[in-house]
């Protein structure tokens, strides 16, 4: 026992010493672009930012952003400092959540009756809380009470998730979904001259690249293993296929023969090794990793994720140039992923919480965030800032001047409005896989998919 005790004591002492040292050692990451009034606001700024009335004096509210700390901790602390100066007497506590487990933690906090006052959720999470009726109605709280503020938000993002036609979130940051990264090394090596612009050409292009490179490269891969997002239904919409009937009481995408054709094309790509077989099980992160490995020509994700390529393969990142994502026949430009802020209906300080959620999404605060990382503001007023109108030479900076016009006109495909969204996602994924693996014909799989979704819609 003696030796054990000695080892344990040594370990404990060492770790405590380290703890003390670390407490002094931790420092801020300095790389601020100090232009703009976000980092050093004036009294005028505070006055301009103060827009919500009836904020509770002495309120203490808790804020849960997810997957943003510690990378953006300085930024978040600055938001809080600015907010507390704008609404004196309100105290904000930052409780960052890691990406893993964030959703579980949010749900359990609601179950225990102790949710934070302002919670950051991915668009796909909002529905279940809205359905349960535990969130503040934003159409009333902002839309009716402050119509001018409502007008500032990108429509497609405001409507991204609704339950029975009502919005329960404030849109926060957006992903620019119209971008494609091209691996310049492969592009040069294969001596390519152009990349197709439509899906119709893209299918054959995949097999051509495969053949031309002697099996060394793929043109692109899919994140078909991703459960969330209902990607295939978005593809249908992009091809001009009606997903819903007119009163949105049922889905009808199976009635259009084009739908089955798309799945047949996918199956052809898969069977002929024109896309990696692991597309079947890859999610978005794995798709990006695959691209980073340097065997894939094209990556169709938002620019905010390009940093992952940079981290894992600087060589490939250095060679990247940008293109536009393939479009379907309908040439629809859809709003991409939306990060949201919600306020629990039972919040003790609803006005303070609302004020903070609005503050985080106001034009200045969001522009400052876009300076930190290539994500885009959900607030159209942000795009008047020279930062957006002028752009810059770096890869992702080129997109900024295009963003305002894009988001203004981007439409919401309404895909996340299904009741029992999670179950619908499982149905779509399961039937989709059945078609791709040849367990069913594409048409049969689509018919079954539609029938099962309609059963859920009918039960509503």
């Amino acid at each position, binding site marked *: 026992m003696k030796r054990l005790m000695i080892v344990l004591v040594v370990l404990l002492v060492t770790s405590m010493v380290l703890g003390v040292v670390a407490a002094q050692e931790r420092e801020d990451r300095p790389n601020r672009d100090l232009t703009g009034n976000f980092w050093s606001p004036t009294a005028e700024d505070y006055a301009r930012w103060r827009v919500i009335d009836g904020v509770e004096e002495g309120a203490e509210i808790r804020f849960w952003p997810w997957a943003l700390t510690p990378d953006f901790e300085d930024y978040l602390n600055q938001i809080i400092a600015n907010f507390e100066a704008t609404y004196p007497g309100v105290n904000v506590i930052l409780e960052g959540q890691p990406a893993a487990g964030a959703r579980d933690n949010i749900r359990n906090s609601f179950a225990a009756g102790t949710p934070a006052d302002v919670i950051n959720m991915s668009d796909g999470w909002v529905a279940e809380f809205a359905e349960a009726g535990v969130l503040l109605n934003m159409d009333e709280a902002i839309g009716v009470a402050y119509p001018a503020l409502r007008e500032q938000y990108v429509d497609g993002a405001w409507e991204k998730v609704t339950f029975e036609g009502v919005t329960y979130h404030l849109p926060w940051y957006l992903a620019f979904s119209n971008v494609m990264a091209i691996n310049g090394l492969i592009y040069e090596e294969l001596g390519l001259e152009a990349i197709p612009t439509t899906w119709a050409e893209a299918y054959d292009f995949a097999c051509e690249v495969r053949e031309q490179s002697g099996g060394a490269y793929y043109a692109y891969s899919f994140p078909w293993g991703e459960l969330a997002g209902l990607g295939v239904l978005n593809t249908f919409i992009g091809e001009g296929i009606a997903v819903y009937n007119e009163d949105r009481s049922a889905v009808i995408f199976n009635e259009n023969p084009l739908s089955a054709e798309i799945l047949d094309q996918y199956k052809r790509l898969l069977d002929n090794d024109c896309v990696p*077989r*692991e597309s079947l099980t890859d999610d978005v992160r794995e798709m990006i990793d695959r691209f980073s490995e340097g065997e894939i020509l094209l990556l169709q994700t938002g620019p905010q994720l390009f940093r992952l390529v940079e981290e894992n393969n600087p060589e490939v990142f250095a060679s990247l140039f940008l293109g536009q994502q393939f479009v379907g026949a309908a040439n629809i430009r859809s709003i991409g992923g939306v990060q949201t802020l919600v306020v629990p209906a039972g919040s003790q300080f609803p006005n303070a919480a609302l004020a903070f959620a609005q503050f985080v999404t106001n034009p200045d605060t969001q522009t400052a965030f876009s300076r930190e990382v290539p994500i885009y503001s959900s607030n159209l007023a942000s795009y008047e800032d020279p930062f957006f109108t002028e752009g810059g030479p770096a890869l992702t900076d080129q997109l900024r001047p295009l963003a305002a016009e894009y988001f203004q006109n981007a439409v919401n495909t309404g895909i996340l409005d299904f009741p029992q969204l999670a179950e619908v996602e499982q149905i779509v994924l399961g039937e989709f896989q059945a078609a791709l693996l040849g367990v069913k014909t594409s048409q049969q799989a689509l018919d079954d998919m539609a029938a099962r979704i309609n059963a859920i819609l009918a039960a509503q």
Partner: protein
Amino acid sequence: MRGKRRRQLRQHIMAYGFMVPAFSFLTIFLFIPLIVAVYLSFTRYNLLTPPEWVGLTNYERLFADPLFWRGLRNSFLYLIATPIIITLSIALAIVVNRNLRGVYLFRTVYYIPAVTSVVAVGMIFEFVFAEPGGLINGVLLATGLIQQPINFLTHPDSTLISVMLVTIWRGIGFYMIIFLAALQSVPEELYEAAAIDGANRWQQHLYITVPGIRPSIIFVAIISSISALKVFEEIWVMTDGTGGLLDSALTLMFYLYRQGFVNLELGYAAAIAAVFSVITLVFSILNLRYLERNND
């Protein structure tokens, strides 16, 4: 007669006295939550709004649910991993129990998989199973042993087996420790005596080692079959939370997770848990009775 009863009574008090600390913790933090969970199985509960009593609805739905039966089937299929784990971990324990130079190092190495976090396991095996350039496929293709990559996770027929490999890999070192501890308690004199009687190595193991570590074998048999039936983490991480192509790796515990924590039907998940627990408990008690009876 009275003396005997007094002694019995005293022994009862002693017995329960020994168990008080453990059972007070267990009651508060396991038995009560367990009862609450069983109560939830009679409700509709989405975690966000209070539970609503629905009687036996969840149980009726369960027996008509094809995915429930598939989950049950896959969970029992997963039991195949148990004898493999036990055999390999006993063999390994015997080897590392030998007085060889540097054997500490090997014991430690073998235990590493058991302590590696499941996230890391997922990352690592993604690389191990990758096609065509992963560890296994890459080596086999390069050496010409196979022409086509093995579809470890991209074919519905192989997903469950691939995940089972991960479980076996994680389990061997873990159970090796238990067997090692047991082997340490088998007195060496027995082997010496057997050697004098002319028993060979193999016979020594059969007649001395195995009976000597019998309680541990029973323990591992019960524990590892329970955890095979309950397998969840490996499936979740290897299939990115989807349950595999066409739900091919959907075990009952994974289905419970999906219903409870993806679809937010906690009442239904609790019903699955209740039925699953009864089945597993009966299975385990029968298993235990059988193994312990053979002991005598």
